[in-house]
């Protein structure tokens, strides 16, 4: 796939948090319709990579482009991004309805029908406050909001962590049903190798702030999963001991 068509493109991205070099020389492109799974042990830099792509963390070196603009500086680029964090971070007083009222005024591509469809599929209450919802319901609210914005780049940062099997499958099903598989580039970080194997077009293995392997196709994904298992059994910490 041509680089010029990439929705997101990272070139030589380096990030330091304090003295720790969390990302270094990262090269990554995400094409439309591509569903990419990011694998790696804790502290590998997955969440940092997600934050750089989402524009909430500025790269110290290299360049970050989403839809042709730096998302940390461009509101238009951020409007093209949907993000589901590992922990809900909406204002706790918001419900799905009030959060949608806020987002509707901010995202030009907002789609109410998709919101309510996703909400129904995820079985999340429309008026319950975030602070009163279960972990799975809160994740569902954030996924529904992310999908309703019709993002060009969808980032899911360990969305299945802490969910039971039913909630996890419901989230996965809603996500796969509503996401624009042809237009949207999706990056999902997870520790769940089974899910990675089920949904990924491409798997990226991160270690020590850099991409160690890429796997495309079932055989390579199997190989990548094996590499991750091997990585997880290692006792040595990451290069900087940084936690992402």
């Amino acid at each position, binding site marked *: 796939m041509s680089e010029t068509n990439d929705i997101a493109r990272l070139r030589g991205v380096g990030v330091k948090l304090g003295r720790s070099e969390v990302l270094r020389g990262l090269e990554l492109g995400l094409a439309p319709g591509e569903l990419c799974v990011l694998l790696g042990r804790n502290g590998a830099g997955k969440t940092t990579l997600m934050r750089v792509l*989402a524009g*909430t963390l500025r790269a110290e070196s290299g360049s970050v482009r989403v839809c042709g603009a730096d998302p940390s500086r461009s509101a238009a680029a*951020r409007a093209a991004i949907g993000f589901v*964090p590992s922990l809900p971070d909406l*204002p706790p007083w918001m419900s799905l309805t009030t959060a949608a009222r*806020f*987002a*509707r*005024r901010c995202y030009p591509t907002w789609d109410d029908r998709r919101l309510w469809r996703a909400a129904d599929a995820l079985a999340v209450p429309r008026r319950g406050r975030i602070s009163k919802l279960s972990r799975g319901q809160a994740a569902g609210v954030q996924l529904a909001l992310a999908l309703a914005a019709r993002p060009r780049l969808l980032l899911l940062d360990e969305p299945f962590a802490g969910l039971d099997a039913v909630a996890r499958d419901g989230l996965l099903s809603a996500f796969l049903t509503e996401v624009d598989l042809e237009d949207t580039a999706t990056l999902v970080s997870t520790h769940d190798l089974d899910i990675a194997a089920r949904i990924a077009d491409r798997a990226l293995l991160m270690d020590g702030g850099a991409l160690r392997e890429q796997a495309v196709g079932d055989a390579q994904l199997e190989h990548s999963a094996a590499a991750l298992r091997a990585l997880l059994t290692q006792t040595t910490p990451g290069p900087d001991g940084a936690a992402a």
Partner: protein
Amino acid sequence: MSLLALTHKELREQAPAFLVAAALVIVGCLVTGWLADDLFVDSATFAHTAAVCLTAIVAIAMGCDIGARERNEGTQEWLRRQPVSLGQVALVKLAVLLGALVAAAVVGSESATVASRLFASGASSLQAEPMVGLILGGTVALALWSMACSSFLPRGFLAAPGGACVFALLALPAALHEIVMGRLRPDPPIGLWLTCALIGGALAALSSMAIGSRREWATWKRAGTVALAGSIGIAPTWFEAGANLAGVTTLDLSSPNLEVRSAFLHTDGRHAFAMLRDEQWPSFPVVIDLETGETVAAGVLGDDLWPAHTTVSTRSNRFPFGVLHKQDGDSEIVGSDGEILAIDRAELSAADLEPFNTIGDGGWTLALPAGGGWRLSRAGSGARAFVAAPGATPVTEEVLAAAGWRVQYVEGWLVDGLWIFRGLVRPSANGQTITEYRSLDAEAGELLAVDWMQARDSIVCALADGKALVGDRARLSIVDVREGGRRDLDTSGRKVRWWAGTATVLQATEGEGSLSCVTAVTADGSIAALVRADGSVARWIEPPPGSAGILCLTALADGSIAVLTYRGGQVLRFGPGGDEPIATALHW
């Protein structure tokens, strides 16, 4: 659209603090209105205090929270991901905070107004409190400061103890009153309260800085706690200071200590401009209807915080106005209804003003517009022309010097078109300073000798037909200013210590035509004499003992004489037969 979304979010998040504070202040206003005396409840001080109080509480409750909220709630990342700039977020937060402060001032003021309407007995009073604007401005600055500080506090709930420190700062104005004015000193219980607020606020701030707090409270709990603590810490001291301030800045016409410091009759013959006070200071300029006793404030008193030096002086022969001189040196022209009149002073001429008074920059001289009239300037003030008449040669310092006058001081009276001057002069360079009198022939522009004025004489009143009442401390005479004849008034055996005040010309009183009235101070106090045109006294008017004299009097349409007394603020009416006076209390 994104600004709307952000505004809605901020309003939703800050509403609890505002509502809790507003509810407490509204209840506080109702309780205060019920318990406090009318002098405070029915004064503007009550509304101002409530406005400042609620604004201060909202400033703290919202200022401490609105900037730090995103970090406290863990929503910074979410906000940064939104397609809005952080600059927009900050702008909206600032706008919401400022809007809330304005709303707080309005809600506080209106709450007190409603409480006043519900509980006050209907008394009215004067006010002079521009300091409120200063305090409100300071409160806005405090809110911004709190907002900035709260953004740097490391833990969420630190906003509350941090706010407690600011509560103490907000309580400081009550203590500052002690410095500004001793009578505003807090009462002992309130002083203790204030001390506790200061110590508690400082301890809370120190502990929060040293220890911190990781306790996570819901939004409404945090905001409500800050608002509640703010109300408890601020409201008592502020309301008490407000009540004390009201005692000073309001004028109670029913006060037994009420005094009329000075007064003179309006050209309409019915109203008097007067300076009233019921405490040591300040004095309030008012207009009094001498027929009904109804009193209105003269001018906009709110322009001066301490109108101690505000005076009403100068009346017009042609226009119904008095001049309200203010502390800052400015002056306003006010009518008999107390309202400021838009009269172009450049259009005034000498004939429009009663001489022997001042208009313009203050001081002791008559200073009139230069364009069409007379100008009498103070010697040494830098003005070169001392007396100028249209079409005549100005009487300059050189003219005066040629007449042998080396002027130290000069004042003048205008009687029937003739200027009469009293100058403190030195006839020669080495001579002693003496008092001399001259009159000015406007057409000739010459100073003529006046031999009928004697040392210490002043012109008390200009009468018709070129006559004037001339008096020194114990003697009052009627003179013809052109011919120079002089005849003393018969004091009917009364021992007059001195003649005082500006005399009043009464029209058509008791069927005797024009009478002039002058006040005299005798051993028994101030009395008034009604003087006929021939210089004889038609009638003496003596106010009852305890009133300490007459300041102003007039003839009413029914032939009675209305007198404004010095002490007690009463209008006395004497019938044509000189019967016992009927007293009318001054009222708003």
